[in-house]
């Protein structure tokens, strides 16, 4: 070919430079100039991410650094404060007690993770095997509904079941095996943790199973593998990523859980999270700071381990090539298993509701008589009203802020992808790695230092940091699935960038935004582990009020309160389900993407429609092309 390609270097002497030659390429500009140019080009991307970065750096990073600094202090027994010393670290690492606590933390984490996996994997499997959609949704609802009820409520329910005069001991006595001492020991903590964390195992495994290529199971069967062998050689290895992701979540959440071991351990289960709280109560901030960083290190090591495991299982994440849906096969055994799991999941909630109508003030089973006096009693609780109000205020404020700035950040990450997006993303998601007790204590020290402790600003800021990653994750995923040519189409038709986002992109991600906001609200409203450190002595949020009450009293006032909360959560969940179903009507209509989708809502209008001929012809073409495709 005589035409030179653009890659071919040409001598500058060649005056007849072709049109493809850059017109007088200027000398490479200085680094600072290039950086400035890049900033200008990506200004929108950086501006959109800026609010989130400000919050994360000013609140989260600031708090964690202050905490780190505190770990190099030492409070000598006689009083005083020595800065810049390794003494507290030394005391921690050489003290046998602290190693015992670390060990117990790991033990609780491992046990909770293993048992949750043993319960959760078959549950996810069973849920994916149910054929009837109605049953399937019922099963999903039962597994996930407890997420909407407060952790304190659920912990309280287990106290009622496992207590000395609780449901379980009543059953044991009835069959002549009891009574047994279960509460206030590791067993009760593990049982409650499994109950609380089960959805975090079921969900990723289900999504893994959902991606499983159904043709692979059929292929294995065709090659002669029986049911068990198919499971062991195909299904299990291919759902391993989900199992590992679930285990990662459950382990991280269980080693950092605070309220459950504190309330059900009865002081006998000493884990890092409860130790941090106790050290703060005993005004040994440096020791609490060291414990916080040890807990953070534990979480980080676990994250690395699970990431390595995940990478090994990575080939499975690629899925199959046919993308055929796995054929759901009903089996009675699975239904039986699901009934058992449902009993386990629902038991504490049911027991709470029954106990709330008890006539006596101690947790006796079965209640000797019925009464509604505990509901009346709620009206006379000092501080309960203001606690509910504060919880609502914080939850609404942090949900609104996090949803807005999180959506801006997600838009920046997906649509603008500015240089350094990995760093922005990591920073935004980093609060999920840090145990909430550690962040709570860090916030406590930090807010004291900057003089914002006790005010609403600090509380809301901390909650924004906690819920922000969830908003960003949900909205990012929604934006990735949204069709960005719709945005381009709106701009092409005359909408400016902001209006194009509102008119073309927002309607597509509306269900995700609702889900993200709801998620944020529930997490914030139910937050204990961080909040408990940030409240001034005269302040309470609802869950912290419940925590404190449960530490002091045994009467069913909490049962009445929890019953009301469960009812409210059910109403809320129902309302959202309706809302999402309505939004889903639009989601189902997003068929103009890759391939024009068939409409089937209007088959009745055939004869009156002037466009029948065209449409009918189209139908036939489609049917023909489908047949052709099928025969190939």
């Amino acid at each position, binding site marked *: 070919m005589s035409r030179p390609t653009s890659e071919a270097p040409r001598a500058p002497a060649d005056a007849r430079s072709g049109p493809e030659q*850059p017109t007088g390429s200027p000398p490479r500009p200085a680094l600072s100039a290039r950086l400035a140019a890049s900033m200008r080009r990506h200004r929108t991307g950086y501006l959109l991410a800026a609010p989130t970065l400000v919050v994360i750096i000013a609140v989260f990073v600031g708090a964690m650094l202050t905490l780190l600094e505190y770990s190099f202090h030492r409070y000598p027994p006689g009083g005083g404060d020595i800065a810049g010393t390794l003494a507290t670290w030394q005391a921690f690492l050489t003290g046998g007690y602290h190693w015992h606590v670390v060990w117990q933390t790991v033990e609780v984490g491992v046990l909770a993770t293993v048992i949750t996996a043993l319960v959760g994997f078959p549950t996810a499997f069973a849920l994916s095997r149910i054929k009837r959609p109605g049953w399937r949704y019922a099963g999903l609802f039962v597994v996930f509904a407890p997420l909407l009820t407060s952790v304190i409520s659920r912990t309280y329910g287990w106290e009622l079941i496992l207590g000395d005069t609780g449901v379980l001991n009543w059953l044991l006595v009835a069959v002549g095996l009891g009574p047994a001492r279960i509460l206030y020991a590791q067993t009760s903590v593990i049982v409650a943790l499994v109950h609380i964390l089960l959805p975090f195992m079921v969900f990723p495994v289900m999504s893994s199973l959902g991606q499983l290529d159904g043709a692979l199971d059929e292929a294995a069967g065709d090659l002669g593998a029986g049911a068990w062998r198919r499971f062991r050689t195909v299904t299990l290895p291919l759902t391993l990523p989900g199992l590992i992701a679930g285990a990662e979540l459950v382990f991280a959440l269980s080693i950092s859980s605070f309220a459950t071991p504190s309330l059900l351990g009865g002081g006998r289960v000493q884990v890092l999270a409860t130790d941090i709280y106790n050290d703060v109560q005993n005004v040994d901030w440096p020791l609490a700071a060291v414990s916080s960083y040890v807990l953070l290190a534990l979480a980080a090591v676990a994250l690395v381990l699970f990431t390595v495991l995940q990478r090994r299982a990575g080939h499975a994440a690629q899925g199959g090539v046919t993308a055929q849906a796995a054929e759901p096969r009903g089996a009675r055994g699975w239904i039986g298993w699901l009934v058992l799991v449902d009993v386990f999941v629902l038991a504490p909630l049911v027991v709470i509701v029954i106990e709330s109508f008890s006539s006596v003030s101690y947790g006796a089973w079965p209640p000797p008589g019925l009464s509604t006096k505990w509901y009346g009693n709620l009206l006379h609780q000092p501080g309960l009203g203001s606690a509910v109000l504060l919880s609502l205020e914080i939850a609404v404020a942090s949900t609104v802020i996090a949803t807005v700035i999180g959506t801006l950040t997600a838009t920046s990450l997906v649509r603008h992808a500015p240089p350094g997006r990995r760093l922005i993303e990591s920073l935004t998601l980093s609060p999920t790695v840090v145990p909430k007790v550690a962040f709570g204590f860090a916030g406590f020290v930090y807010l004291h230092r900057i003089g914002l402790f006790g005010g609403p600003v600090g509380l809301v800021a901390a909650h924004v940091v906690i819920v922000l990653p969830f908003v960003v994750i949900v909205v990012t995923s929604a934006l990735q699935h949204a069709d960005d*040519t719709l945005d*381009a189409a709106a701009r092409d038709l005359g909408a400016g960038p902001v209006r194009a986002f509102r008119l073309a992109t927002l309607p597509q991600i509306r269900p995700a935004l609702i889900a993200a906001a709801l998620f944020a609200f529930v997490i914030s409203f139910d937050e204990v582990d961080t909040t408990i450190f940030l409240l001034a002595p005269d302040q309470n949020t609802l869950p912290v009020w419940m925590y404190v009450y449960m530490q002091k009293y045994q009467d069913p006032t909490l049962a009445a309160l929890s019953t009301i909360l469960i009812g409210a959560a059910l109403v809320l969940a129902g309302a959202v389900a309706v809302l999402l179903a309505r939004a889903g009507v639009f989601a189902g209509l*997003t068929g103009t993407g890759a391939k024009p989708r068939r409409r089937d809502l209007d088959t009745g209008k055939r004869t009156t429609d002037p466009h029948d001929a*065209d449409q009918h012809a189209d139908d036939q073409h*489609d049917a023909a092309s489908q047949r052709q495709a099928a025969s190939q």
Partner: protein
Amino acid sequence: MDTPDAELRGVRKQYPGGARGVRDVSLRVERGEFFSLLGPSGCGKSTTLRILAGLEEPTAGEVLIRGESMARRPAHRRPTNLVFQRLALFPHLTVAENVAFGPRLRRGSRSETAATVAEMLELVGLSGLEKRYPAQLSGGQQQRVAIARALANRPAVLLLDEPLGSLDLKLRVQMQRALKHIQQESGTTFLYVTHDQVEALTMSDRMAVMNEGLIEQVGDPATLYRAPTTRFAATFLGDTNLFEGTHRDQVLDCAGIAVRVPGPGRFASVRPERVSVAAQLGDGYPNRFTGRLEEVVFQGASIRYQVRLPSGVAVTAERRDEATPALAVGTEVETGWPVDAAVMLDH
């Protein structure tokens, strides 16, 4: 000549990381023209279109629409509208709302907008379907909505980015006719991007063949087909027998055979339909070769023959079905063509 509706002057687009873009495109699209940009995928034709629409910023060069420079003017302030490859209909809006999207943004009065919507739907033949959602329409109907929506802004130039790519053959032919009709009816300038040579040949007033970010040739379809000026244009538009060799004295010396040609050049392109094949050719074939019939492919209206000459060169001929007596594969045949059948090319 009037000011062209769209003009590109030395437009280049380089992507960071060296992805293929546009190397140098200069182009004039006249008022009321149906102009096609034809080329293989990745040749830069869609990028060129998006640069015109303002959805991509050119690295260098100038874009003018009706003589006005479009530099630094974002997509939503340009008098162009684009029919997207994947249509990009708003799934949450009805047909009427989709079409009214542009006029509403332009703050037309309610009655004006309604009149525009009615007119556009009439134009594309969708009156009566105003209240449907895109997912309730067939593929062909969705195409029409996309066109109506883009035309509703009364753009100076309507840009179309392979809008028929997702349709099956028969529907595509139907839509091609509809498009041409809509273009003539509305009198709008169309700039149509496609990789389908048949589409470009049948619909365009003029067209440009693009390859590797450069324009190879611009002209009306007949000229481009009959008188290509580059090897790429000759081979991309239809089939051709391409002979390469050294030219001497009206003869191209090419891999052991001497081809009589009408003029100088390095390549001779001979369309298969100009090549005859028979057991024994009559007189009047200055180019006449004997070879073995290697392949006979029945194509419906025509039959394709491939003849392998002793020198190893393969010659393809395409004849109307009834024009040639049956020939058996493997037999010795004669093949030939007139001197003026060859188009001479330098590169």
